[in-house]
């Protein structure tokens, strides 16, 4: 069946038309090859250095040996702060936009701001974070300054995902709840939010992935070149995977020697981000299917 279908498609494209068909097809193929190559290169060259010590030990001997544990932990901490900042705020903003606000000039302005916020270059967030969180608020270069900076950066992701989730909750549920005498907050809390949880979770994971991979915003807000100890409070500086990769590939005094470590770091980072993104994509597909089935 499928084979026939493919034949039919090609049969529709006769003679010189086939050139066009293949042009479009190869374009997509090229994109996939680029992606495949990047993943393959990092995987094949990085897998060799991955072992228990690499994951669980700190760098040693001027960062030419040892592992990347502090960078993993640092990234973990900073993304937790990011999400703790961006998700509640993002969900609340989405609830405002979708459940409370009267659609008009003001909500259009909020939405436009949101889309423009999404387009602000990451290094500009870095500048903002440095001026506001590090200096003005006096956090100093720290987990919390970097986490808030990344939180601002991921806010559009979480708001958009949360709003998409809220929109898919059927209006009939809201009407049913209102008709029973529920207040708006009760409607949101008891009927809308429980339905929107998978979507909000998707946004959270996407936000995590985004925050885990960003380097520019944390350059001056808290990421450290090397720390002999793990961060012990939200005021501590921290090592982070992407920043570690940046250092290992451009700033280290013996770049050729630490290349394998750089590959290993890249592999860990890519694996982490890809798993998060894939989880988000699958989760979203599941609830979109569920919505499509009307359940």
């Amino acid at each position, binding site marked *: 069946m*499928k084979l026939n279908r*493919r034949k039919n498609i090609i049969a*529709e*494209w006769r003679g010189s*038309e086939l050139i*066009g*068909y293949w042009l*479009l*097809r190869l374009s*997509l193929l090229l*994109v*996939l090859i*680029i*992606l495949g190559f*990047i993943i393959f*290169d*990092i995987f094949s060259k990085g897998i060799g250095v991955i072992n228990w010590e690499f994951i669980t030990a700190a760098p040693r001997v001027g960062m030419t040996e040892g592992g990347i544990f502090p960078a993993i932990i640092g990234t973990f901490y900073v993304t937790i702060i990011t999400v703790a900042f961006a998700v509640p*705020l993002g969900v*609340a*903003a989405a609830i*405002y*936009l979708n459940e*409370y606000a009267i659609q008009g000039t003001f909500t259009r*302005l*909020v939405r*436009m*701001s949101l*889309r*423009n*916020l*999404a*387009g*602000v*270059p990451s*290094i*500009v967030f*870095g*500048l*903002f974070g*440095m*001026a*506001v969180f590090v*200096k003005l608020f006096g956090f100093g270069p720290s987990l919390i300054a970097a986490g808030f900076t990344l939180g601002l950066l991921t*806010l559009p992701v979480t708001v958009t995902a949360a709003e998409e989730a809220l929109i898919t909750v059927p209006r009939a549920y809201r009407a049913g709840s209102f008709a029973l005498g529920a*207040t708006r907050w009760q409607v949101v809390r008891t009927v809308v939010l429980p339905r929107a949880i998978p979507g909000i979770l998707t946004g959270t994971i996407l936000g995590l*992935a985004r925050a*885990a991979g960003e*380097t*520019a915003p944390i*350059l001056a807000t808290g990421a450290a070149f090397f720390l002999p100890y793990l961060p012990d409070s939200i005021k501590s500086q921290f090592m982070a995977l*992407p920043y570690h990769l*940046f250092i290992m*590939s*451009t700033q280290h005094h013996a770049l050729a020697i630490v290349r394998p470590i*750089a590959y290993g770091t*890249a592999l860990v*980072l890519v694996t982490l981000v*890809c798993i998060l*993104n894939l989880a988000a*994509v699958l989760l979203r597909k599941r609830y979109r299917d569920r919505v499509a089935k009307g359940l």
Partner: protein
Amino acid sequence: MRSITEKIMRVIFWLSGIAIIVFLTGILFTLLSNSIPAFTEIGIKPFFIEGLWRPGAYGEPTYSINNFIVGTFMVTLGALAFAVPLGVAAAAYLSEIASPWERELFKPIVEVLAGIPSVVLGFIGLVVLAPLIAKLFGIPSGINALNGAILVGIMALPTIITLAEDAITAVPSDYRHASLALGGTRWQTIWKVTIPAAFSGITAATMLGMGRAIGETMTVLMVTGNMIARPSSFLDSVRTLSANIAIDIGDVVFGSIHFHALFVVGLVLFLITFIINLLADILIHRKPEVNK
């Protein structure tokens, strides 16, 4: 009791909505207010006249970002030159030709591409693409504008593909059927009917891709060489606006003229991307919303 909770929650949500606007204007305000000392000390013109960025120069520091603007646009336009045709073609394949299972499979893969951290792409550019470019053009180093353009193009691809695909899919199938019914071939239909009908969406996709490319930091920082001199070709090293901030941000003295000059660079970067995003936004939302 219940109405108090209701009122509190209403205020919380309202504040959260306001917060979005406050953040965006807060960023602009921070950039502006921190730029003003630089403007009063140096003036506005010296940032844009021909010259070099030498904030540390003994005696006569200069703050021209002229070359960085050139560098930024070289990398960006170079990136779009291959990312737009490739992205739109891939999007056309996905929405017009691909079977449902292909779409189901490939679209998430494109999203994965979007998720690759820019620092990883920069690393690939450094260790894979740079030697390749050096060998291909017979030059000593492949760390240059071309390398940056290719990688930034790859970064912009997912944005362009996703938005262009949305735009193409949104073209009413009536158009296609009309064209096919008139005896148009599939290629003619895509090339002469569907893509032109999706033109404004594709333009918006290009512009958002452009916004991403201009703001991209880590990749260009790692692979373009960051020379402050004016580049004369794609095989020269360039420094972009964003890379310049990233390079200096680490060890700038807080409150110095240099510090404030960095915010001027940030302000320029913000305004360029803001205008591009705004235009794209207007393009996408130009059509009146049917209902809500």
